C-alpha cells in the first residue's frame, strides 16, 4: 500500500491499472478527461499492460467497450454528462448482453443551461438501463468502489455492467490522501477475467440477436433476477474487501449515527460529507439525527432501507437532480420502498448545476426534517439555497 496525494480521477485510473484492465476506449469530456489521460500515461510508461483506444465519440467508446467485453477482456472506460447521454443507446445494449463493463461517470449537469459542474441529472435518468449504479463520497471510495465494481460485475450471479458515479470537480479535481493498494493485494481480491460466454471462433455463438416477444420477456426477467442477486453480491464483496484492505462501506448503504436516531436524511455522493458534519452538530446538541449514505441506486435496496428507516419519525431525501413538477428520483424510489409504513418523507433539492452545498444548507434541510418529525407541517418538497422566493 502506498499513500498518495491524488485526485479521485487519478485514484480510479489507479484502480483500472490495479484491476489489470486490458482495454480502455475513451473520449475526452470534462471533468472525466484526466482519468483517460492518466491511464494513457500508465500505458505509455509501461506501468499498465493495456491498450487505450481513442474512439471518435462516446457512442463509439461504449461500442468499442461492448465489442471488447464480448471478445473476452476486462474493459474499463469513463465518461460524464453529455458523453453519457450520447452513450445512452449503447448502455441498453451492454446490460442485456450481460457484459461486465465498468465505467466511471463523473457527475456533471447535462443539457442546457450548459455547465460543467456537478449534478446527478446525467446518471440518475439512466438508472433503468440495466447497469448497477454506485455513488461515492471521496477519492478513496472512488478507488475502492471501482475495484469492487469489477468483482460485482463479473460475479457469475450478476454479469452486468457497473457505473461508478462521482461528483464532478468536488471529487474529480480535488486532491486528497488516497491509499493505493499494491497489485499483489488486488490480485488476491480480483481473479482473472472469466472468458466463458465470450465470442471466439473456436466456439461459435450468437450474441444479442433479434429476439421476438416469445423469448424477449424471459431475457428481461433474467436481467431482473441478476440485478436482484447483485444485492447480496455487493454485501459479500464489501465484506471481503474489508477483510483484505481494512476498509468497509456498508455494502448497499452506510448508516451513520442511526442506532437511536429519531429522524434521518438519505442522499448520495459528496453531500454526505457535509451531512455527517451536521449530524455531529445536532447530536452534540442532544438532537437525535441520523444519516444514510446510499451507495447503490441500482440495485435499489428497498427492503434493507425499509428495515433501516421503519422506526423514523421523519426521513428527508437529498436530491442533486430535479424531476420537474414534483419529487426527485430518489424520493420516488424511497417512497415506494416505504409504502405501507407511516414514516413521513420530505424531499430536499440542493446543489443543482454544481452550486456549493454548505454545512448551513444541510443544517437547514435537517431542521425541516426535524420539524416534520415533531408532527409540524412543512413543505413536502423544498429547494435549498435558491435565490429569490420559493413559490
Amino acid at each position, binding site marked *: 500500500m502506498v499513500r498518495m496525494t491524488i485526485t479521485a480521477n487519478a485514484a480510479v485510473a489507479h484502480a483500472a491499472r490495479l484491476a489489470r484492465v*486490458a*482495454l480502455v*476506449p475513451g473520449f475526452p469530456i470534462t471533468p472525466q478527461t484526466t482519468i483517460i489521460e492518466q491511464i494513457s500515461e500508465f500505458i505509455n510508461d509501461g506501468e499498465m499492460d493495456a*491498450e487505450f*483506444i*481513442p*474512439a*471518435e*465519440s462516446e*457512442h*463509439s*467508446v461504449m*461500442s*468499442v*467497450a*461492448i*465489442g*471488447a*467485453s*464480448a*471478445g*473476452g*477482456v476486462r*474493459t474499463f472506460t469513463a465518461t460524464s454528462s453529455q458523453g453519457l447521454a450520447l452513450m445512452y*443507446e*449503447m448502455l441498453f*445494449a451492454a446490460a442485456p*448482453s450481460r457484459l461486465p463493463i465498468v465505467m466511471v461517470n463523473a457527475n456533471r449537469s447535462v443539457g442546457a443551461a450548459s455547465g460543467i459542474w456537478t449534478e446527478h441529472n446525467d446518471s440518475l435518468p439512466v438508472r433503468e438501463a440495466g447497469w448497477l449504479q454506485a455513488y461515492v463520497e471521496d477519492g478513496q471510495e472512488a478507488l475502492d468502489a471501482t475495484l469492487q465494481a469489477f468483482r460485482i460485475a463479473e460475479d457469475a450471479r450478476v454479469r452486468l455492467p457497473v457505473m461508478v458515479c462521482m461528483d464532478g470537480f468536488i471529487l474529480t479535481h480535488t486532491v486528497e490522501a488516497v491509499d493505493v493498494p499494491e497489485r499483489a493485494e488486488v490480485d488476491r481480491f480480483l481473479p482473472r477475467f472469466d*472468458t466463458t460466454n*465470450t*465470442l*471466439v*471462433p473456436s*466456439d*461459435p*455463438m*450468437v*450474441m*444479442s*440477436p*433479434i*429476439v*421476438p416477444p416469445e*423469448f424477449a420477456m424471459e431475457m428481461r426477467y433474467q436481467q431482473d433476477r441478476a440485478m436482484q442477486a447483485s444485492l447480496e453480491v455487493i454485501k459479500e464483496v464489501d465484506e471481503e474487501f474489508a477483510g483484505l484492505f481494512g476498509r468497509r462501506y456498508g455494502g448497499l448503504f452506510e448508516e451513520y449515527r442511526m442506532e437511536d436516531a429519531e429522524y434521518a436524511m438519505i442522499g448520495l455522493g459528496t453531500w454526505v460529507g457535509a451531512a455527517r458534519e451536521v449530524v455531529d452538530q445536532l447530536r452534540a446538541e442532544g438532537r437525535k439525527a441520523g444519516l444514510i449514505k446510499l451507495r447503490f441506486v441500482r440495485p435499489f435496496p428497498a427492503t434493507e432501507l425499509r428495515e433501516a428507516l421503519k422506526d423514523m419519525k421523519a426521513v428527508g431525501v437529498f436530491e442533486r437532480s430535479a424531476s420537474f413538477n414534483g419529487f426527485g428520483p430518489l424520493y420516488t424510489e424511497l417512497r415506494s420502498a416505504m409504502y405501507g409504513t407511516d414514516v413521513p418523507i420530505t424531499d430536499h433539492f440542493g446543489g443543482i448545476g454544481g452550486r456549493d452545498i454548505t454545512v448551513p444548507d444541510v443544517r437547514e434541510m435537517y431542521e425541516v426534517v426535524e420539524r416534520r418529525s415533531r408532527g409540524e407541517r412543512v413543505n413536502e418538497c423544498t429547494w435549498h439555497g435558491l435565490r429569490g422566493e420559493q413559490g
Partner: protein
Amino acid sequence: MTSVRSPVAGLRNVSREDMLVHGHGACPGCGYAVTARNIAKVLGPQTVVYVPASCLTVFSATYPKSAWRIPFLYTAFENTGAIITGLKAAYRRRGIEANVVGMAGDGGSFDIGLQALSGAAERNEDVIYVCLDNEAYMNTGIQRSSATPFGAWTTTTPAGLEIQGNRRFKKDLAAIVAQHDVPYVATLSVAHFTDFVKKVEKAKSMSGFRFLHCLTPCIPGWRIEPSRGVSIDRLAVETGMWTLYEVEHGVPRVTYRPRKMLPVTEYLGLQGRFKHISEEDVRTLQSWLCRKWKAHYGEEVEEPPCVIARKDEGLGHDGDPLHGL
C-alpha cells in the same frame, strides 16, 4: 466481359464450406444473402462477424435460430466501425487469430454509421469492413439513403406530381474511405465473381483496415424480378452506375473495364424503382455518368443514346414482399 467467361478460374481455392448457411429468411434472390454468404465463405471459420441493424441481422439471426456457423454479434445501427474495433482488440489481447468482419448496409455505412466507419478507418483498425450497398434503407421498407441513385423511387422520395424520385447523386463512399489512407479499398459486384473472390481473398491476406464495398441488388426495393439481381448488377457496371476497382496502399487500379459504355436506360429499364423517370432526368443522369466515367477510366466517353425501353413488362413480382411471388 472476359472476367466472367470462366466462372471457375481462380476459384479453386475457395472452400465449399459455408459460414452463412441456407434456411435463413432472406427474400429469394436477395443480393445481401449472396454477398454475405460468399464473403463469409472466403473468410472461413476463423472469423467473427458483427452485423448492425439491417435485413441481414433479421434474416440470419432471429432468436432462437441462426444461420451463422461463426460467432455473430449485433447491437445497434451506427457503430459497426467501433464494435469491430473492440472485438479485434480483445482477440489481439488474448492472442486469438480471427478475421473480424463488420457487414453493414448503406444506411449503416454512408449515413448513420459514417462517423464510426471513419474513426475505425483513421485508426487503421485491423478489421474488414464490408458495406453491403442496396442503395436505400430496405429493412425499414425502402427509404432513401445517401447511397440512393439519382432519380430512384423510394418511399421517402416518391414519384409525386411535383417531384419524382431522389434528387441527389449517390455519395462516393469508397473514395471517402480511401482518403483515410487505409491499406485496402475495393468495390465488388456479385456479377463479377472471380474479381469478387480475388478481392475478398486479398483483403483476408492483408492487415489493417480493409474496406469492401459491394453493390447488392434488393428484390423488393429495386422492384426487380428475383432472378434478375446478378444481370442487373452486371448492367450497373456496363453502364457506369457501378465501377470495379481497388486501391491498395494508395494505388488505384481498375479491375474491370467495360468495352463500351451502355446507355443507362439499359440498367434503369429493368427496375421498377426507375419506372417513373422522366427523359430529362435520364439525360441528367447520363451526363453525370459520362463525367464519372471520364474521372474513373481517364478517357472521354461519347454519350450513348438513351431510349427508355421498358423491359420489365409482365414482371412476376410487383416488388412488394407482402404480396408474395
